[in-house]
C-alpha cells in the first residue's frame, strides 16, 4: 500500500508599488487549481483502496492551514504544515520547496508524491521535477491519466504533440494536469470530519533544509495597460488618423 503525498500551493498576487515583489498581506490564500486536481486524484486512489493514507503538505505562513483543511475535507487523512513566513516566504521558490518535499518524503516514507504541474502565480513548473531529481525517483509529469498496474504506475502525459504513455516504477513523483479529473466540492459532513483530522507543524530547519534563495528578484512589473481605441466617423478620418500615427 502506498502513502501518496500532496503538495499545495497558495496563489493570487499583485505587484507592490515599489516593484520589488508582490503583495502577500491580506491576500486570500486558496489552493492552487492544479494542486486541487492532485488532491482529488489521491483521494480517488484511496477510495479505490490502492493507497493506504493520503497526507497533504503545504509550505507557507499561517494561512496555508486553511488550504490544508480543504484538502482534508476533500478526503486527505492528515496534514503537514511546513512553516515559512515573512521574508523567507517571499523568496521561497521551487528549489527550496522541492528540498523540503524530498526531506519529508524520506521521513514519512512516502511511496507516491502528487502535486499540481505548476502554481498559477509563478507558472514555474519546476517543483515536481526537482523533487524527483533530489530523491532520484522517476517522474510522470503533466498527467492526464494515472493507473496503478502491479508495482508500476502507468501515466498518460499531455505533451505538445498529443499524449504520451509511460510506465514508471514506484516510488515516483506525478504532477497533475488539467484533464486528470474534476475536483469534488468539499461537502459539509466532510468539512466537519476534517476539523478532527490532525495538522502537524514543522519548520524547514527541522528537516535540515536551508530556505535561503539563490535568486535575486531585480524588478517586478505589471503588463502594460491596454490603450483604449479611437472611433472615427468616416473612412477619410481613418486614413488621416493612420497617417498621423505614422502607420501608413
Amino acid at each position, binding site marked *: 500500500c502506498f502513502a501518496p503525498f500532496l503538495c499545495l500551493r497558495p496563489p493570487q498576487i499583485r505587484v507592490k508599488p515599489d516593484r520589488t515583489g508582490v503583495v502577500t498581506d491580506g491576500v486570500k490564500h486558496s489552493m492552487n487549481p492544479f494542486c486541487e486536481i492532485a488532491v482529488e486524484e489521491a483521494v480517488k486512489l484511496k477510495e479505490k483502496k490502492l493507497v493506504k493514507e493520503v497526507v497533504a503538505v503545504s509550505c507557507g505562513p499561517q494561512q496555508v492551514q486553511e488550504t490544508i483543511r480543504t484538502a482534508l475535507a476533500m478526503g486527505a487523512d492528515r496534514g503537514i504544515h511546513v512553516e515559512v513566513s515573512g521574508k523567507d516566504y517571499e523568496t521561497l521558490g521551487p528549489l527550496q520547496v522541492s528540498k523540503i518535499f524530498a526531506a519529508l518524503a524520506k521521513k514519512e516514507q512516502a511511496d507516491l508524491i502528487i502535486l499540481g504541474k505548476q502554481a498559477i502565480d509563478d507558472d514555474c513548473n519546476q517543483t515536481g521535477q526537482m523533487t524527483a531529481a533530489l530523491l532520484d525517483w522517476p517522474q510522470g509529469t503533466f498527467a492526464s491519466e494515472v493507473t496503478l498496474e502491479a508495482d508500476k504506475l502507468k501515466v498518460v502525459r499531455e505533451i505538445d504533440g498529443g499524449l504520451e504513455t509511460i510506465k514508471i516504477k514506484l516510488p515516483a513523483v506525478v504532477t497533475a494536469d488539467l484533464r486528470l479529473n*474534476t475536483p469534488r466540492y*468539499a461537502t459539509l459532513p466532510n468539512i466537519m470530519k476534517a476539523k478532527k483530522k490532525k495538522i502537524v507543524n514543522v519548520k524547514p530547519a527541522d528537516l535540515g533544509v536551508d530556505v535561503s534563495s539563490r535568486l535575486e528578484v531585480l524588478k517586478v512589473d505589471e503588463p502594460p495597460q491596454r490603450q483604449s481605441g479611437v472611433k472615427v466617423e468616416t473612412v477619410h478620418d481613418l486614413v488621416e488618423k493612420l497617417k498621423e500615427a505614422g502607420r501608413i
Partner: protein
Amino acid sequence: MGIFQRFARIPLKSTYIWSLCRQYSTDLTAVDRALIQHRCVHNRGLGASPGNPGAAPPRLPFSRVTQEDLAFFRTLLPGRTITDPDLLKSSNVDWLKTVEGNSEVLLRPKTTEEVSQILRYCNERNLAVCPQGGNTGLVGGSVPVFDEIILSTSLMKQVITFDNISGILTCQAGCVLENLSNYLEERDFIMPLDLGAKGSCHIGGNVSTNAGGLRLLRYGSLRGTVLGLEVVLADGRILNCLATLRKDNTGYDLKQLFIGSEGTLGVITAVSILCPRKPKAVNVAFLGCSSFQQLLETFQCCRGMLGEILSAFEFLDASCMSLLEKHLKLTNPITESPFYIVIETAGSNATHDEEKLHKFLEEVMTSSLVTDGTVATEATKIKALWSLRERVTEALTHEGYTYKYDISLPVEKIYDLVQDMRGHLGDMAKNVVGYGHVGDGNLHLNITSPSKDPALLAAIEPYVYEWTSKWKGSISAEHGLGLKKRNYIYYSKPSEAVALMGSIKAMLDPKGILNPYKTLPDNIH
C-alpha cells in the same frame, strides 16, 4: 414564438381611451374619430380581451413618423438616428423573444438636453416614444408595441461624480450595471443591487422598473438607495432632483413617482445612488434541504446566527437542478435534494465571518435541517456556486416556451403555489419549477412547454393570479407590469389606487406619448 399583432382588429371599450379621445378631439380627423367611436362601442374579438389580457390593444391614434420628423432628428442627433431595419431589429424584440414591435426609428441621445429636445418635439407632434435601456425586461415593457420611436440610453454612459467618503455615485441613465460595479469595486465600493442581467441592463432601466435582485435582502430596494433623479418629462421639461444628500425632507419626494414607473411618467436621464462599501470577506454556502418547511427553519436559523453578515438567501428546487444539469451541463456539487439554498455572507472580517458561518453550518447539519452542503470562500468557486442559481433562467429558455410568473407571497406559502400548480396542470405542462428570492418572499414560478400553448395558458391564467390575490400577494414582485401584465393590476391593487395612477399619468403625460400600452391597464375603472 409569441409575436403580438401590430393591428389588433378588436375595438376597445376603455374610459382611458375616452379621456384621450377628448384631449385629441381637435387633432383627429373625422375618419379617426369615427374609427375610435366604433371601436369603443363594439367590443369583441382578438387582441386584449378577457381571454388574453396580455396581448396588445389596438394602436392609439399617434402621429406617424414623416420625412420632416427624420430630418429634425438627424439634425439634432447626427449619426445617431437609426432607421436601418437590420439595426432596428434587435431593439424591436425583447430578451425573451416573445414581443416584437415595428419601430422605424431608434434615437441615441448623449445628453439630457438632447432627450429634452426629443421629447418636446415628439410631444408637439404627438409621436409615441418607447424609452429603452438594456432591453432585458421580462414583461415586454422595453420594446415598442407598434411604431413608437425608440429612445435608447445606450450612449448616456458617463459616470458624473463619485464621492468615496459618502459612497454616493452620480451617473447617466445608460451606464451598464456591471460597468458601474467594476468602476466602484476599484474604489472599494459596490452597487447596492445585483441581478443576472447585470452585463446588459442600464441603471436608468433598473430604476424605472425598481429592479430587485440578489442583494435586496441586505441593502434594500432602489426606493431606499436612490437619492436623486434627473428626469425629462413628456413635454421636454427637465426635472432636476439629482440631490446627493442622504437626508432631505423638503416637500414631496417626487423621485419616488418615477422609480418603478416603467418609463410611463418621464424618462430618467441621470441617477444618484448610495453605494455600500465592498465587503472584505464574501462566503457562499450551497445547501440541500429535504422539505420546504426545513428550508424555512434554516432561514430562521440563518437570520439568527448570521444576521448582520447575511447578504443573500436564494432557493431553487430539484426541477431547476435537473434543467441546469440537462441543458447547461452544470454539476450538482452536493447530493440530490428536493430543495437547494444559496446563502451569501458579506462582512468586513474574514475570520469572524468564517467562524459565524461554520457555527451556523454545524448547527443546521447536526439538527438535520440541512442534509448536505458545501462552502466556497474563493472567487472562482463562489462564481460556480452562484451560477447554479443565476443561470436557471437561461436553462429554462432551452425547454421551448416558458410562462414566467414573478410572485410575492407570505414566505410560508411560496412553495404551495408551485405544488398546487403542478397538480392543477398535470400533464399539460412539460415542467413546473420554482426558484427565487425566498428571503424576500419572492417566487419565480416558471412553467415550460415545448411550444406556445394557448390551452396551457388558459389553465395557468387567471388561476395563478387568483391564487396570489387570495393570499394578498403581488402578481409582479419585481419584474413590473410592462405590456404583458398591465391588465392584471387589479389582482394586487384596489380600483381607487389604479384610478389615482391614471390621474397622475394624465397630469404628467396628457398626450400619453411615453411608453404607451404599458403598466396601466387598458380599462381604468
